[in-house]
């Protein structure tokens, strides 16, 4: 038997269950329509505070998120390098330092352009 057969069977079961649920709901479920049911689905209460005039959010959060990504990606590569630093030798050391220099550039850019100032 092919190794992928169980996955295929699982996929068919999942698809079948979805179809079954929709069909059975259309037969047995009560149908009482109102305005809220026709509106686009959104869960929870209205988000507060609403952005001022024109629906824009402050860019600060995105800048912080970008900063996180810079350091996050740095660590993703630093850990595997650190684990096998001995085996990788001088080539690995030079490569990781080149990588760190490249990462410092956007960091410096963000700092100089005021991305670290909250107010």
């Amino acid at each position: 038997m092919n190794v992928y057969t169980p996955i295929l069977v699982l996929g068919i079961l999942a698809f079948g269950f979805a179809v079954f649920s929709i069909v059975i709901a259309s037969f047995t479920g009560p149908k009482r329509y109102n305005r809220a049911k026709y509106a686009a689905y959104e869960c929870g209460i209205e988000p507060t505070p609403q952005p001022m005039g024109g629906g824009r959010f402050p860019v600060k959060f995105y800048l912080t998120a970008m900063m996180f990504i810079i350091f996050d990606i740095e660590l993703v590569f630093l850990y595997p390098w650190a684990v096998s630093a001995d085996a990788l030798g001088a080539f690995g050391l030079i490569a990781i330092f080149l990588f760190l220099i490249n990462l410092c550039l956007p960091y410096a850019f963000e700092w100089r352009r005021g991305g670290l100032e909250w107010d």
Partner: protein
Amino acid sequence: MNTFTAPEIDYVAIAPILIVAIAALLSVLTETFLPRSVRRPVQMILTLISLIGALIVLVINRDIRTITGGGAVAIDGPALVLMGTILILALLSAFLVAERSLDSLGDSFAPSAAALPGSVDEREFSARGYFQTEIWTLFLFAVLGMLAFVVANDLLFMFVALEVMSLPLYLMVGMARRRRLLSQEAALKYFVLGAFSSAFFIFGAGLVYGFAGSISLPEINDALASTAGETLLIVIGMAMLLVGLLFKVGAVPFHQWTPDVYQGAPTPITAFMGATVKVAAFGAMMRLLYVAFSGIQWDWEIILWAVSILSMIIGSLIALTQSDVKRMLAYSAIAQSGFILVGVVAASPSGISAVMFYLIAYGLVTVGTLAVISMVRDSTGEATHLSKWAGLGKKSPVLGAVMAVFMLSLAGIPLTSGFVIKFSVFAAGIAEGDTWLVIAAVVASIIAAFFYVRVIVVMFFSAPNENTASVAVPSIFTTITVAATVTATLVLGIIPQPMIDLLTNAGIFIR
């Protein structure tokens, strides 16, 4: 534990790419530490020096044929030719980016693209006379991605190059100084659809890895040769990789973004991406198909046959109905992708060199045409509606004549480069037995000739009226680009043989 052997890297062979990479990083430093007043000249000089320097190193390197960087980089004839093409086209478009005397407000880019269109912030930035200089940094990174794209010899490096090329382009598209909302809409559409197609590419790479156990293109080919059955996985993987690449060249049915992006982007950026992205993506596509997937040629030929015919016919037919010059050029770009695919399907050395010739000549014409469009203006900026071009040839004979040369070349009329490239691509197709495909291509080029010639008719055979746009006086930058492209178009059309000889010698991909 496995012992680690450091990959051999031939720094001389990849020097052109390294030069552009270092220039791009220096460009980030320029933006970071230099005061606003000197950024623009520094960025321009940096871009100019790095592109010309890379081109010189490329010419010195012209005899290098090697695979380096642990098998990730292949420097061969097509790679060198395509890198040179990208550098020249990027240089010519860089002049358009530098142009500042056409628009009364300054260059073509928003001083602060992040400011809300029509807001107080935006007016303040304009009033202070700020100029966008990050465009040069993005420009250099895009060129870097394109250079890496055509030499990539494994799927992962190819994907990274694809992203390095695409991400700056998404941003640059949204930076037009005028018609900001249109530009931002184009950028968003391009980004969302582009990211979607990149996902297809990386998923396809995963499936191919699942089949071959390697991401290196020659090893995928070996795996195909040694495995008899179980080809469904690799066929699906190959098709998904093609989706990613066909999106970049704007072939039907992955063309929906093209008109909006061509129209919304600042015209220098339209010129840049319209010319160079096609070169990079077709270069990568040929390497992928010929080096990795020659074992399932039958499968991808069928796909590309269909895509090619659809692109040519749909692109040409919809272009007939366009009244905006930039949108018409976008549909023409879709049709031209179809013509290039005829050469890709041919899959022979003559097909490869025909495709490369097509990319060179078509790229030059594209940059030249958009340079001309950027000069035709009225009080609201560029006048791209065809009705405003009425009688332009009588008002400004030189510009009219130049535009006429480009239109005739795109239509494929003899004595222009357009005839030679169409002829060589169709000849390569017939030599490989794709007669029906070539017949469809000829029919499509007859349809296409109509809307190219219509521009000439509008310019020369109708009287100028009060709506006719005026022609802004360009500085030395745009003049160089227009002069170079129109000269190249005529020279390649009248004496194409030296270029054909050069490309015939360069038409072999190494494994």
